[in-house]
């Protein structure tokens, strides 16, 4: 659905709110996620998830009700508004409620700077798959040790619009994210080692599949040739690399 059509449908919420004497806000979101998973040097999953929907927040005498729908048609939006209003009627009043905002807390044109890359947003699902294949080609050409790649490459485009009955209006704010988790496994005789790297950027230009794969493959291969030592358990000072620090919150506060 084109943004103009979706906005036209959602604007009816504002007139419904005015008629009911309540405040209302619409958050309209479109997400397009392309995700390619490579395991053992082949693409095993290629997904394109397209999400589109609206969330409505109704404020009635300082009590809030929320509702969401992903069917952007007049009757569905109206039902969502009625549902949010019903929720607001039963919710507790927020102390010192000063109303829905009248303007965004920034004068910038874009709320988050440098968060959008048009080139990345315009990539089709099969172009993202092609980027994954490029990573594979670099792994295969890397070294004499047998290397296998397991990776997830995800490209996300989001666009949101927000407007309310107090005149706030911010339309079509886009953002992009490119995320990749690369695991390279190096094998030599009976020895096998893996190395992993995660990558996240807003822009396609910051992603260099060749160097990303090269770095991980080199790290996996290096471990193959290290002398074997057994260390007994003891208390010791430790120095954590930024990568290890990064993994601590996700391990101790759950994955995802």
């Amino acid at each position, binding site marked *: 659905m084109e943004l103009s059509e979706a906005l036209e449908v959602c604007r009816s919420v504002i007139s419904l709110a005015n008629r009911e004497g309540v405040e209302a806000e619409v958050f309209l979101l479109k997400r397009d996620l392309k995700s390619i998973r490579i395991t053992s040097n082949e*693409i095993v999953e290629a997904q394109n*998830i397209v999400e589109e929907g609206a969330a409505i927040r109704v404020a009635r005498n300082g009590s809030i009700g929320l509702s969401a729908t992903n069917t952007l048609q007049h009757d569905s939006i109206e039902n969502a508004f009625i*549902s949010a209003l019903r*929720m607001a009627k039963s*919710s507790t009043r927020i102390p010192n409620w000063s109303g829905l905002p009248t303007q965004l807390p920034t004068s910038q044109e874009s709320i988050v700077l440098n968060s959008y890359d048009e080139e990345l947003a315009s990539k089709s*699902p099969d172009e993202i798959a092609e980027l994954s294949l490029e990573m594979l080609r670099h792994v295969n050409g890397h070294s004499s040790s047998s290397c296998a790649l397991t990776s997830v490459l995800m490209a996300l485009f989001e666009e949101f619009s927000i407007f309310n009955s107090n005149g706030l209006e911010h339309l079509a704010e886009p953002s992009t994210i490119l995320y990749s988790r690369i*695991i390279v496994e190096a094998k030599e005789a009976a020895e096998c080692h893996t190395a992993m790297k995660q990558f996240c950027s807003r822009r396609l230009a910051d992603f260099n599949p060749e160097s990303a794969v090269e770095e991980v493959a080199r790290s996996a291969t290096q471990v193959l040739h290290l002398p074997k030592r057994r260390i007994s358990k003891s208390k010791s000072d430790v120095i954590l690399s930024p990568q290890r620090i990064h993994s601590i919150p996700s391990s101790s506060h*759950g994955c995802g």
Partner: protein
Amino acid sequence: MDLDSLECIAHEAVDYALSREAKYVDARIQHEEGAGFVVSGGEVEEGGSASLTGMGVRVIVDGAWGFCSTDNGLSKLNVKERVDRAIKLARKSSERIISPVEMAATKVTHTRVKGPNSDFIPMEDFTLASILEPARECDRRVRSLRGEIQTSSLSFTVGRFIQTFANSDGSLITQAYSGFLGTIYVVASSSGVSEYYPHDFGGLGYYEKFLDDDLPVLAERIARKACQLTRSRTLQKTATFQTVVMDPHFAALWVHETLGHPLEADRLLGGRGDPQNAPWTYKVFGNKVASEFFSLLDDPSVETPAWHRYDDEGVEARKKPLITNGVIKGCIHNRETAAAFRVEPNGGARSPSYHFTPMPRMSNTYIKPGDWALDEIIEDTREGIYVVGGMTPLVDSRAYEWRISAKEAYIVAKGEVKEMLRDIILSGVTPDFLISLDAIGEDLQIAITPDCGKGSPIQMLPVGNGGPTIRGKAYVGGAE
């Protein structure tokens, strides 16, 4: 949207993909309505509702998978456009394919089924009025205890779901069910010690009985426990190896992390390329790993939010023996892993919505009860620790070593439950702990995990896990 329309769209998607030379296609359409509240201190903090409809289409073209999902406007044009995207992705993937996708055969099914107790909850009846009084009753009971309660919160969500599945084998299956999920927690504080005590719950069908009868009792119980915990001591951090008795809820979390996930077939296949990180079950599949009185099952017919009659690939769900008399006998399959194992698919493919491709997932995974009464287990324990309720799990990528904190713990001495302990953590090595099990209780209970996560993009699903009280040996440490 009525059932006929949903089924018609699913058919159209399948037919169109076949006309575009897909070798296999399945379409899943889901309509979901839900509403929920968060009530804290007897007042509603948040209330919201959602109505979601959408479709996911999966195709095999030239031996490779392609998938696309959409959620706004299931018009003919939109459906075709999404099918085209899935086909394009499959074609691209097929450029780099080592072994073409193979799926195990399954029965073609035409049916419409309803979940147990699932005459639909009229969503318009699920208003604050229906939950506020029971929630306030919970709060009254929590606050009547003492001044130690810092905060309490109840989140409660109900939903009703219609899922239509059609595939190019000719299956057309529609399942409809409704259910509820929630979490209640209490934070108590005394003399500088704060204790957080959460409890997840969920069920199928109507929720009134649970709200009116069970929830206030549950709230009072966990509030009492949280208060008692603040006045309890803990053990030293340095862990000691001892006899441990796990209650059914602690056992549930242990089963989930150390046996459930490692017996999902895609993980057993070594992540297809990362055998070093394959679960501990990989090397011992088909072997004896526990004594003969230990058996583990996965059963989607248990009436929890993980219930399903057909999985998300249209395969009839069934009880799956995973460990029988101590021997690993099977695992949880989707059609692709079943083909790799050369076995019949067993209906274990699940996904949280049409936005995700199904993968092997637990439904209700539990230890088969034995014949020990709880009292007998305690009386038979000379010295040890009794843990009640699992809190936070931590396992390595192979689920070989585990570490789980307990909500409550007690010293067991000379066959009696004695002093309460707080902040106790159990740890161990999975195969060693399995071998050490010497008592399996008769008191089976299934606990709800509302948000088990797997995959990338991550897929969050409710699962049931459980067991009876069990006794084995593990490391026990505290927070001192």
